[in-house]
Protein backbone atom coordinates (compact mmCIF):
# COMPACT_ATOMS: atom_id res chain seq x y z
CA UNK A 1 0.00 0.00 0.00
CA UNK A 2 2.78 2.27 1.07
CA UNK A 3 4.74 1.33 -2.00
CA UNK A 4 1.87 2.09 -4.29
CA UNK A 5 1.41 5.41 -2.56
CA UNK A 6 5.08 6.21 -3.08
CA UNK A 7 4.86 5.16 -6.65
CA UNK A 8 1.89 7.36 -7.33
CA UNK A 9 3.68 10.23 -5.69
CA UNK A 10 6.75 9.61 -7.75
CA UNK A 11 4.72 9.47 -10.90
CA UNK A 12 2.93 12.65 -10.06
CA UNK A 13 6.23 14.37 -9.41
CA UNK A 14 7.62 13.01 -12.63
CA UNK A 15 4.61 14.30 -14.47
CA UNK A 16 4.91 17.72 -12.85
CA UNK A 17 8.63 18.04 -13.57
CA UNK A 18 8.07 16.66 -17.03
CA UNK A 19 5.39 19.24 -17.69
CA UNK A 20 7.65 21.96 -16.34
CA UNK A 21 10.48 20.88 -18.58
CA UNK A 22 8.13 20.68 -21.52
CA UNK A 23 6.90 24.18 -20.78
CA UNK A 24 10.45 25.46 -20.56
CA UNK A 25 11.32 23.63 -23.71
CA UNK A 26 8.38 25.13 -25.52
CA UNK A 27 9.20 28.57 -24.22
CA UNK A 28 12.90 28.40 -24.96
CA UNK A 29 12.78 29.34 -28.64
CA UNK A 30 10.53 32.33 -27.93
CA UNK A 31 12.56 33.68 -25.01
CA UNK A 32 13.98 36.99 -26.05
CA UNK A 33 17.58 37.31 -25.01
CA UNK A 34 18.26 41.00 -24.75
CA UNK A 35 21.67 42.60 -24.87
CA UNK A 36 23.50 43.64 -21.74
CA UNK A 37 21.45 46.19 -19.89
CA UNK A 38 22.46 49.69 -19.07
CA UNK A 39 23.76 49.94 -15.54
CA UNK A 40 23.48 52.74 -12.98
CA UNK A 41 27.14 53.48 -13.80
CA UNK A 42 26.33 53.83 -17.47
CA UNK A 43 23.52 56.24 -16.64
CA UNK A 44 25.91 58.19 -14.43
CA UNK A 45 28.41 58.35 -17.29
CA UNK A 46 25.68 59.71 -19.58
CA UNK A 47 24.75 62.32 -16.96
CA UNK A 48 28.41 63.31 -16.58
CA UNK A 49 28.65 63.77 -20.33
CA UNK A 50 25.55 66.00 -20.32
CA UNK A 51 26.62 68.08 -17.35
CA UNK A 52 30.30 68.39 -18.18
CA UNK A 53 32.19 70.49 -15.67
CA UNK A 54 29.08 72.11 -14.19
CA UNK A 55 27.76 71.09 -10.79
CA UNK A 56 24.64 68.96 -10.67
CA UNK A 57 22.27 70.09 -7.94
CA UNK A 58 19.20 68.31 -6.65
CA UNK A 59 15.78 69.96 -6.88
CA UNK A 60 13.61 72.18 -9.09
CA UNK A 61 12.17 69.16 -10.91
CA UNK A 62 8.87 67.37 -10.42
CA UNK A 63 8.52 63.95 -12.04
CA UNK A 64 4.94 62.80 -12.23
CA UNK A 65 5.10 59.07 -12.90
CA UNK A 66 3.08 56.27 -11.28
CA UNK A 67 5.13 54.58 -8.51
CA UNK A 68 3.76 51.17 -9.47
CA UNK A 69 3.36 50.28 -13.12
CA UNK A 70 1.73 47.13 -14.42
CA UNK A 71 2.81 47.41 -18.03
CA UNK A 72 6.26 48.81 -18.72
CA UNK A 73 5.44 49.38 -22.39
CA UNK A 74 3.53 52.60 -21.79
CA UNK A 75 4.38 54.49 -18.65
CA UNK A 76 2.86 57.98 -18.56
CA UNK A 77 5.43 60.49 -17.48
CA UNK A 78 5.16 64.24 -16.90
CA UNK A 79 8.19 66.36 -16.09
CA UNK A 80 7.90 69.90 -14.75
CA UNK A 81 10.88 72.15 -14.07
CA UNK A 82 10.45 75.03 -11.66
CA UNK A 83 11.93 77.72 -13.89
CA UNK A 84 10.66 80.96 -15.42
CA UNK A 85 10.57 81.06 -19.22
CA UNK A 86 11.83 84.57 -19.96
CA UNK A 87 14.54 85.69 -22.41
CA UNK A 88 16.99 86.12 -19.53
CA UNK A 89 16.15 83.02 -17.57
CA UNK A 90 14.69 79.85 -19.01
CA UNK A 91 14.99 76.09 -19.07
CA UNK A 92 17.10 75.03 -22.06
CA UNK A 93 16.85 71.26 -21.98
CA UNK A 94 15.27 68.39 -20.09
CA UNK A 95 16.75 64.89 -20.31
CA UNK A 96 15.00 61.75 -19.08
CA UNK A 97 17.31 58.85 -18.24
CA UNK A 98 16.98 55.38 -16.77
CA UNK A 99 19.19 52.74 -15.21
CA UNK A 100 18.12 49.38 -16.50
CA UNK A 101 16.76 49.65 -20.03
CA UNK A 102 19.20 48.58 -22.77
CA UNK A 103 20.17 52.24 -23.24
CA UNK A 104 20.30 54.99 -20.60
CA UNK A 105 18.58 57.70 -22.70
CA UNK A 106 14.81 57.94 -22.96
CA UNK A 107 14.08 61.41 -24.33
CA UNK A 108 15.83 64.77 -24.53
CA UNK A 109 13.69 67.87 -24.92
CA UNK A 110 15.01 71.29 -25.98
CA UNK A 111 13.07 74.40 -25.03
CA UNK A 112 13.30 78.16 -25.39
CA UNK A 113 11.33 81.15 -24.03
CA UNK A 114 8.70 80.61 -26.76
CA UNK A 115 7.86 77.24 -25.18
CA UNK A 116 6.07 79.08 -22.40
CA UNK A 117 6.38 76.42 -19.76
CA UNK A 118 9.26 74.16 -18.76
CA UNK A 119 7.15 71.04 -18.79
CA UNK A 120 6.13 68.18 -21.05
CA UNK A 121 4.28 64.86 -20.94
CA UNK A 122 4.98 61.66 -22.79
CA UNK A 123 4.82 57.88 -22.51
CA UNK A 124 7.94 55.83 -21.99
CA UNK A 125 9.07 52.19 -21.83
CA UNK A 126 10.63 50.70 -18.72
CA UNK A 127 12.11 47.21 -18.85
CA UNK A 128 12.30 46.67 -15.11
CA UNK A 129 11.85 48.15 -11.66
CA UNK A 130 14.32 51.01 -11.60
CA UNK A 131 15.11 54.64 -10.96
CA UNK A 132 14.15 57.23 -13.55
CA UNK A 133 16.35 60.31 -13.43
CA UNK A 134 15.64 63.69 -14.98
CA UNK A 135 18.36 66.27 -15.64
CA UNK A 136 17.40 69.85 -16.49
CA UNK A 137 19.70 72.48 -17.96
CA UNK A 138 18.86 76.13 -17.31
CA UNK A 139 19.99 79.07 -19.43
CA UNK A 140 22.29 80.30 -16.65
CA UNK A 141 24.34 77.12 -17.05
CA UNK A 142 23.13 75.37 -13.92
CA UNK A 143 22.07 71.72 -13.94
CA UNK A 144 19.40 70.21 -11.72
CA UNK A 145 18.30 66.64 -11.27
CA UNK A 146 15.69 64.49 -9.58
CA UNK A 147 15.13 60.74 -9.40
CA UNK A 148 12.11 58.60 -8.78
CA UNK A 149 11.81 54.86 -8.26
CA UNK A 150 9.26 53.02 -10.38
CA UNK A 151 8.16 49.45 -9.68
CA UNK A 152 7.35 47.64 -12.92
CA UNK A 153 5.38 44.38 -12.87
CA UNK A 154 5.68 43.45 -16.54
CA UNK A 155 8.66 45.01 -18.25
CA UNK A 156 8.80 46.32 -21.78
CA UNK A 157 10.87 44.66 -24.54
CA UNK A 158 10.04 41.14 -23.37
CA UNK A 159 6.92 40.34 -25.33
CA UNK A 160 7.28 37.61 -27.92
CA UNK A 161 7.71 38.41 -31.53
CA UNK A 162 6.26 36.23 -34.23
Amino acid at each position, binding site marked *: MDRIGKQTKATRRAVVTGAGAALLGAAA*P*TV*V*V*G*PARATPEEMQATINKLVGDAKLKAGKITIDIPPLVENG*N*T*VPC*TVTVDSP*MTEQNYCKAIHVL*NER*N*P*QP*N*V*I*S*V*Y*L*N*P*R*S*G*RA*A*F*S*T*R*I*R*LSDTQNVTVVAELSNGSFWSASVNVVVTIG*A*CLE*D*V*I
Partner: protein
Amino acid sequence: MTRALINVPTKAKRGEIIGLKVLISHKMETGFRYTTTGERIERDIIHTFIATYNGDEIFRANLHPAMSANPFLAFHAVATESGVIDFQWHGDNGLAARQTAKITVE
Protein backbone atom coordinates in the same frame (compact mmCIF):
# COMPACT_ATOMS: atom_id res chain seq x y z
CA MET B 1 2.22 57.26 -44.64
CA THR B 2 2.26 57.50 -40.91
CA ARG B 3 -0.87 58.89 -39.34
CA ALA B 4 -0.41 61.76 -36.94
CA LEU B 5 -2.90 63.40 -34.63
CA ILE B 6 -2.42 66.93 -33.42
CA ASN B 7 -4.39 69.01 -30.97
CA VAL B 8 -3.93 72.77 -31.24
CA PRO B 9 -6.40 75.44 -30.08
CA THR B 10 -7.79 77.40 -33.02
CA LYS B 11 -7.99 80.67 -31.07
CA ALA B 12 -5.89 82.17 -28.32
CA LYS B 13 -5.31 85.48 -26.60
CA ARG B 14 -2.01 87.27 -27.23
CA GLY B 15 0.63 86.11 -24.77
CA GLU B 16 -1.43 83.18 -23.58
CA ILE B 17 0.34 79.88 -22.93
CA ILE B 18 -1.37 77.23 -25.03
CA GLY B 19 -1.17 73.47 -24.67
CA LEU B 20 -0.19 71.41 -27.70
CA LYS B 21 -0.59 67.65 -28.00
CA VAL B 22 0.78 65.43 -30.73
CA LEU B 23 0.62 61.71 -31.36
CA ILE B 24 1.96 59.77 -34.31
CA SER B 25 1.22 56.15 -35.09
CA HIS B 26 4.52 54.31 -35.15
CA LYS B 27 5.65 50.98 -33.72
CA MET B 28 8.97 52.36 -32.39
CA GLU B 29 10.81 49.08 -32.93
CA THR B 30 13.66 49.15 -30.41
CA GLY B 31 16.26 47.05 -32.23
CA PHE B 32 16.64 44.95 -29.09
CA ARG B 33 14.07 42.31 -29.93
CA TYR B 34 14.59 38.99 -31.66
CA THR B 35 12.29 36.83 -33.74
CA THR B 36 11.53 33.24 -32.79
CA THR B 37 14.25 32.17 -35.22
CA GLY B 38 16.83 34.30 -33.45
CA GLU B 39 17.19 37.13 -35.92
CA ARG B 40 17.45 40.60 -34.53
CA ILE B 41 14.69 42.98 -35.59
CA GLU B 42 16.26 46.14 -36.97
CA ARG B 43 15.73 49.37 -35.10
CA ASP B 44 12.97 51.49 -36.62
CA ILE B 45 12.10 54.52 -34.53
CA ILE B 46 11.21 58.16 -34.83
CA HIS B 47 14.29 59.92 -33.52
CA THR B 48 13.48 63.61 -33.87
CA PHE B 49 10.44 65.79 -33.38
CA ILE B 50 10.43 69.52 -34.08
CA ALA B 51 7.66 72.05 -33.56
CA THR B 52 7.91 75.51 -35.11
CA TYR B 53 5.64 78.54 -34.75
CA ASN B 54 5.74 80.73 -37.86
CA GLY B 55 9.18 79.34 -38.57
CA ASP B 56 10.62 79.77 -35.07
CA GLU B 57 11.44 76.63 -33.14
CA ILE B 58 9.35 76.27 -29.99
CA PHE B 59 10.02 72.66 -29.02
CA ARG B 60 12.41 69.94 -30.13
CA ALA B 61 12.80 66.39 -28.85
CA ASN B 62 15.29 63.60 -29.46
CA LEU B 63 13.54 60.29 -28.99
CA HIS B 64 15.28 57.03 -28.10
CA PRO B 65 14.05 53.41 -28.30
CA ALA B 66 12.77 53.74 -24.70
CA MET B 67 9.85 55.80 -25.99
CA SER B 68 6.55 53.94 -26.18
CA ALA B 69 5.00 52.92 -29.46
CA ASN B 70 2.88 55.69 -30.99
CA PRO B 71 4.96 58.44 -29.38
CA PHE B 72 2.84 61.04 -27.65
CA LEU B 73 4.05 64.47 -26.57
CA ALA B 74 2.25 67.24 -24.75
CA PHE B 75 3.97 70.59 -24.38
CA HIS B 76 3.29 74.33 -24.42
CA ALA B 77 3.87 77.42 -26.49
CA VAL B 78 3.30 81.15 -26.12
CA ALA B 79 0.64 82.42 -28.53
CA THR B 80 2.56 85.38 -29.96
CA GLU B 81 0.79 86.05 -33.26
CA SER B 82 -1.65 84.47 -35.70
CA GLY B 83 -0.03 81.97 -37.97
CA VAL B 84 0.91 78.38 -38.51
CA ILE B 85 2.30 75.85 -36.06
CA ASP B 86 4.23 73.20 -37.88
CA PHE B 87 5.06 69.74 -36.50
CA GLN B 88 7.70 67.50 -38.03
CA TRP B 89 8.78 63.97 -37.23
CA HIS B 90 11.92 62.33 -38.59
CA GLY B 91 12.71 58.66 -38.24
CA ASP B 92 14.82 55.73 -39.36
CA ASN B 93 14.61 54.54 -42.97
CA GLY B 94 14.01 58.10 -44.14
CA LEU B 95 10.67 58.51 -42.41
CA ALA B 96 9.38 62.06 -42.46
CA ALA B 97 5.93 63.23 -41.43
CA ARG B 98 4.49 66.70 -41.19
CA GLN B 99 1.34 68.29 -39.86
CA THR B 100 0.39 71.93 -39.62
CA ALA B 101 -2.28 73.81 -37.72
CA LYS B 102 -3.55 77.36 -38.04
CA ILE B 103 -3.98 79.51 -34.98
CA THR B 104 -5.72 82.87 -34.65
CA VAL B 105 -4.36 85.16 -31.96
CA GLU B 106 -6.51 88.06 -30.84
